[in-house]
């Protein structure tokens, strides 16, 4: 009896947790398949009559600007990721492999920068972006995603510390210059760290709401397109639900395929 009780308690609490997580998501899924008549007559917990009613999804796609959102997000995502990887690995290479004047200072600057809550400093960042003439362009977002990425540099530095310096030296004896060493030796060996950064940064950019909201008001990114559902579809919860599911779906797919990497990446970048 006393041996069984803890087991029961354990699984009971896990099941409750699973319900707490899954129930709010499931009811949104239910709603997304309902017709508007069905939505207003059935309770939130009753499943839809027709699981293949995709009308709301097509409304969300066509009228809700979700296509534009996905396209814009993909563009910004790809450019920002490539840039982050190049800039971050180069910085990490310099900091980890060279002794130079100002190295400590630069590391200190990166360290302090992690403490500044970036949402608040938008008050002043906004003036700089509009001063550069980038307000209302995707370039502003790319620049901000590149510029606020200090965690990536830390992940690269941490990983690079584990790559033996003797590899650099061997390449140098073969006549390689520093750039060749970075490009041919270090960068390929950083692949696992790059994968980690792509995943955590990719998720962060996909989910970012405030930067596109503030800097790209005239075009939709995935978050802002969805956010704009609030107005025109305010009373049509079944369409909002479909949009919400459309936004969650890619995340779910990514999670199912990349689980192991995501857990690893978070623990590495977690300490943000």
């Amino acid at each position: 009896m006393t041996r069984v009780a803890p087991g029961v308690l354990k699984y009971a609490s896990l099941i409750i947790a699973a319900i707490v997580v899954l129930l709010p998501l499931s009811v949104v899924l239910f709603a997304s398949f309902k017709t508007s008549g069905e939505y207003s007559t059935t309770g939130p917990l009753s499943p839809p009559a027709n699981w293949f009613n995709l009308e709301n999804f097509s409304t969300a796609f066509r009228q809700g600007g979700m296509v534009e959102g996905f396209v814009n997000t993909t563009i910004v995502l790809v450019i920002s990721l490539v840039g982050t990887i190049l800039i971050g690995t180069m910085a990490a290479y310099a900091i980890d492999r060279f002794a130079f004047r100002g190295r400590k200072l630069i590391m200190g600057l990166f360290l302090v920068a992690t403490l500044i809550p970036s949402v608040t400093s938008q008050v002043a960042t906004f003036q700089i972006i509009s001063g550069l003439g980038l307000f209302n362009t995707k370039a502003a977002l790319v620049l901000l995603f590149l510029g606020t990425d200090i965690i990536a540099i830390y992940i690269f530095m941490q990983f690079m510390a584990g790559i033996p310096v003797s590899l650099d030296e061997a390449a140098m004896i073969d006549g390689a210059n520093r750039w060749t060493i970075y490009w041919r030796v270090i960068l390929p060996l950083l692949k696992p760290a790059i994968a980690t950064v792509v995943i955590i940064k990719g998720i962060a950019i996909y989910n970012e709401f405030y930067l596109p909201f503030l800097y790209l008001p005239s075009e939709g990114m995935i978050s802002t397109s969805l956010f704009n559902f609030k107005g025109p579809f305010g009373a049509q919860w079944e369409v909002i639900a479909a949009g919400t599911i459309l936004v969650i779906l890619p995340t779910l797919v990514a999670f199912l395929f990349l689980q192991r990497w995501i857990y690893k990446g978070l623990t590495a970048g977690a300490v943000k």
Partner: protein
Amino acid sequence: MSVSTTGPDPVGLSGPLHGVAVLDERGRPRGPGGPGAPGGPGRSQRRAARRGRREGPAGRRVLSRLTPYLFVSAAVGLLLLLTYLPAANMLWYSITDWNGLGPVENVVGLDNYVEVFTNPRILSVFGVSLYYFVGAFLQMALALYFATLLSFSTRFSNFFRGVIFFPYLINGVAIGFVFLYLFQPGGTLDTVLGWFGMTDPPQWLGDADIANYSLAGTSVWRYTGLNFVLFLGAIQSIPNDLYEAAELDGASRWQQFTNIIFPGIRRIIGLSFILAVSGSLSVFEIPFIMTGGANGTATFVIQTLQTAFSYRQVGLASAMAVVLLAIVLVVTWIQRKLFPDEKVDLT
């Protein structure tokens, strides 16, 4: 880039990558000609030596001194442009009454700071942080509980781990809508509560006394997964033989928790605590998306951004941002004093 002016610049800059190749190309045509001309080898050696003295070592030295700066320049440039320049500007704006348009007109000294601490509209938002602060503790407790459970062998542990963690990955706007739907009058939550006999539920988001609890609860739902995965990772890095030894000694699960697990993950708990403090001060997305800060749910960050972009009081908003920044820095400093052995180089 100021460094480049110290050396024979253009050579120094372009030399780093191509210097070797250029030397080879120049040297090679001379090589074949050498044997034909008497005294060739000596002359070419001398020339090589002269050339070396002229640009080789010196150029290479400048170049090699410049190399790390070139590699780090993009990252530092962006850091200065998008983090430190705004921070410095923010300090400057905070002592002016600038409206964000046109030139700065009046320097008002510390007036903005006085207003931050005396204006009840601004001061009240600090109180809102408390809901999230308490929520963050609940979140850490839940995360710790489930991380401990799942660190022992469990059926379907992958499934449960995934389910508890997944909300952290979901887009904030999507979460906002999911919970707006959940909290609707007559919505999911009310229906479920009805099953348990609670027939007169409050207005979860409409009632100013309740709204902050609902939003903090949403925040807990969203972020527990992150704490959970961090704790779980830390627990799993504790060597297994410690548990085995404890089990041989007849230690109960609770004793194992207090004597092995908790001390083993104290560090990550300390870190999560700091994140809880700064996180609860800078809550933004959930309340902004769900209520827009109505019904007394405006957080400090919402208030700051509204002050800047809706009321056009950039000076005052900057002062608010500086205050928030100062609080975060102080809290971090305290944490480092309290846990000096903490590995902080990652933070």
